[in-house]
């Protein structure tokens, strides 16, 4: 990775004051031609998985082959996730913001020749709005982006996360400089309190209040204190934190340093999932570069304040997202949570006062300090200020990462930004808050997305995963899925969680096989109550939520399983049969060849049949059939 001294081409690069930082920003900006064309290639995990690295390589080769003169030579910039993952790999041409989607390496030459040299767009790579059918040229006009309000994500997609010069040019670390130069620690805490910021990790505890009680704990217990970033984003379907860490690592770092300054902490930890290697890499690079610039480490910006950070890689345990489990994990032990009757701001890491916030919360801090709490309060709604980043996944057209102000209705996110469910029907439900959250049915589509409204609807904000479900998704199956997930991820220390969740899952398993009774539903509720009351940590006590909310909104569907032995959504294997529609079957034999159990028979070019007794309902035939002839009932 780039060494700062080389990247900045300066000899003595250590910054010693806020003015130094301003000067450096100016120097970087003045060295850049705003009109110089720039090809931005998304290097988020989604796009990388779709081959964006090959695309950027191809673009580089194509540039070299085109033999463009050095003066107008466009830069190729690789950035963090731009959010519109379902369309990756994404390529943007700046200035202007021409937006290409699903770019393949072989398109590189054409992009260079047509767009850069001749200024013409490559039509087939442009985004076509599925709703209107219009082709849209620029990023800012695409509904997916147009309807968002990118505050926390404002740098992502614009800067190269591995080059601190980009961050500084975009105004990074100015909030830190401001605080160190002109604010007391107390003022920083006051700002955060005034902003109304609530933790983005799930429960929505007011961040300012947390910091305040930590300060109080320090009064009696003294130092050291610790600040910790919770980057153990374990909720399946959530990748907001990953995107922030990958795309704008300095924002997290700056927020953490500010927090450390406010509390007088000298040591911080970032606990990041090992499944996010890129995020770890980018954070490490960011730390190295910040250290070299004197923004981290000894005597930051000559203010006399010293602070350093270490990254802990998670080792694969969802429960380590729970604060006390995370602490024991940092201490090098199995991540068993401990009861929180003494709060972690008083007794956290190594029994010391500790402030733990998740990635997105930390990334909000520089914004609040930089632009002031009043500016921040104007975003969102009272009691839920600011914006929230959501990962919009599941049965939705525009899968990706979106940022909206708090308080917008669910439908605005799913239908306007997300483009609705493929096929055009209304969504069935939106699952928010991951395994600890619940479902918002279509009937509540106008529920405002803020902490309190979601809780009222029986769900929760959680870390921000929004999973859209359509009529093809079965709530019993989704409940089973989450319970199985939590059952596997439970640390197993307390009985209600270890055994209660298993039992709940077993009851749902029975439902999905058409076994069970209404009494079982009653038992399920009573057991869920016992688990909520009895579990030791938040993982267990929130685990019954998905089941309880679906029972609340989709009881009929449960009853259909129990009483009629049918799965209305056609998901539960034991309650469905696969048949071949003789009218549509062309006798191509491809299903018969793929069937793992050899239970499809039929002559060539004649309609086939499935032996339902032998069928293991793996669904491969349905997947294979090109003519949609395999039916589920």
């Amino acid at each position, binding site marked *: 990775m780039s060494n700062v001294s080389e990247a900045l081409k300066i000899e003595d690069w250590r910054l010693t004051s806020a003015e130094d930082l301003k000067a450096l920003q100016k120097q970087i900006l003045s060295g850049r031609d705003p009109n110089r064309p720039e090809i931005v290639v998304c290097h988020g995990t989604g796009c990388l998985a779709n081959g964006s690295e090959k695309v950027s390589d191809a673009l580089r080769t194509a540039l070299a082959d085109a033999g463009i003169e050095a003066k107008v030579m466009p830069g190729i910039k690789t950035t963090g996730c731009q959010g519109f993952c379902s369309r990756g790999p994404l390529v943007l041409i700046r200035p202007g913001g021409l937006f290409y989607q699903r770019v393949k390496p072989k398109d590189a030459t054409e992009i260079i020749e047509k767009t850069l040299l001749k200024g013409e767009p490559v039509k087939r790579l442009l985004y076509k709005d599925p709703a209107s059918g219009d082709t849209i040229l620029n990023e800012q006009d695409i509904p997916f982006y147009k309807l968002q309000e990118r505050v926390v994500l404002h740098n992502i997609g614009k800067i190269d996360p591995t080059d601190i010069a980009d961050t500084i040019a975009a105004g990074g670390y100015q909030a830190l400089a401001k605080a160190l130069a002109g604010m007391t620690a107390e003022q920083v805490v006051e700002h955060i309190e005034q902003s109304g910021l609530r933790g983005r990790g799930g429960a929505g505890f007011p961040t300012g209040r947390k910091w305040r009680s930590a300060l109080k704990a320090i009064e009696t217990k003294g130092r050291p204190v610790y600040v910790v970033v919770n980057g153990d984003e374990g909720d399946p379907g959530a990748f907001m934190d990953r995107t922030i860490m990958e795309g704008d690592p300095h924002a997290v770092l700056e927020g953490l340093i500010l927090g450390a300054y406010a509390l007088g902490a000298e040591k911080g930890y970032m606990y990041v999932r090992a499944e996010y290697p890129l995020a770890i890499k980018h954070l490490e690079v960011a730390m190295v570069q910040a250290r070299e610039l004197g923004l981290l480490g000894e005597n930051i910006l000559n203010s006399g304040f010293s602070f350093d950070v270490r990254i802990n890689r998670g080792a694969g*345990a969802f*429960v380590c997202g729970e604060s006390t489990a995370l602490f024991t994990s940092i201490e090098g032990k*199995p991540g068993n949570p*401990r*009861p929180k*009757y*003494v709060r972690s701001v008083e007794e956290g890491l190594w029994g010391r006062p500790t402030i733990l916030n998740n990635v997105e919360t930390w990334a909000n801090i520089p914004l609040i300090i930089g632009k002031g709490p009043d500016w921040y309060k104007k975003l969102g709604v009272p009691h839920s200020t600011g914006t929230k980043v959501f990962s919009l996944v599941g049965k939705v057209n525009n899968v990706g990462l979106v940022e909206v102000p708090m308080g917008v209705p669910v439908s605005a996110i799913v239908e306007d930004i997300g483009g609705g469910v493929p096929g055009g029907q209304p969504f069935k439900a939106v699952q928010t808050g991951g395994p600890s959250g619940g479902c918002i049915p279509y009937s509540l589509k106008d529920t405002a997305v803020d902490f309190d409204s979601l809780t009222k609807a029986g769900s929760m904000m959680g870390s921000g995963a929004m999973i859209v479900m359509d009529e093809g998704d079965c709530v019993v199956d989704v409940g089973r899925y989450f319970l199985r997930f939590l*059952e*596997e*991820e*439970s*640390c*197993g*220390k*307390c*009985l*209600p969680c*270890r*055994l*209660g969740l*298993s*039992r709940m899952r*077993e009851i749902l398993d029975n439902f999905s096989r058409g076994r069970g009774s209404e009494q079982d539903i009653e*038992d399920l509720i*009573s*057991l869920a*109550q*016992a*688990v909520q*009351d*009895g*579990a*030791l940590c938040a993982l267990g006590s929130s685990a019954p939520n998905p089941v309880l909310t679906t029972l609340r909104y989709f009881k009929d569907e449960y009853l259909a399983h129990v009483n009629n032995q049918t799965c209305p959504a056609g998901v539960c294997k034991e309650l469905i049969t696969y048949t071949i529609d003789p009218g549509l079957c062309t006798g191509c034999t491809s299903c018969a060849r793929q069937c793992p159990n050899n239970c499809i028979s039929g002559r060539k070019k004649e309609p086939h049949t499935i032996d339902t007794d032998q069928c293991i309902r793996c669904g491969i035939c349905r997947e294979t059939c090109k003519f949609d002839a395999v039916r589920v009932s």
Partner: protein
Amino acid sequence: MIDFTINNQKVSAQPGWTVLETARYYGIDIPTLCYHESVKPSGACRLCMVELKEGDWSKLVASCIYPVQEGIDVHTETERVNNVRRWIFEMLLATCPASEEIREMAARYGVVSTQMPVHDPDQNCMVCGLCARVCEEVVGLSAIAVMDRGVHKKIGSPFLRPTDVCVACGCCVSVCPTGAMQSIFDTVRGKPAMEMTQLAV
């Protein structure tokens, strides 16, 4: 002195006591399994849950680790508490069907059968981890520990083989609330079940 009530009975405690300790001091019954006086409480079995009431609002806490606080209103036999307790006993009866001790205790609290399916009729360990805590805190060895996680959680020595670290003091056997340690102990100390030499008379 810290004054509060348990089941509407006025009690007073010293700072540093837990709700359970205070209750026992006053002779109020709260069931426990993973609790032992010789080690720090861990709050794993959740049998000792009690309800703290505050107006309309209430919460359940594990009394073995909950420090006493001025003015709290503790109840040990509410509907919510009993619901948790009943389910835990049912779970225990299903996971440790072979444990005589569990059966007796559950019966004392009115749970004699379970509707949960029994997966392993010979199992008697509930993985409360008491043995491991005693090995660490009392004996000072950590020859055994709680291994794995979730439903696979189990007690054992590293690699589930006999370990040199074990001094075969048997403290783990003595604290085990379910009698499960008897068989695990033989694996840990590396002694196959063998017949004893009997006293010649």
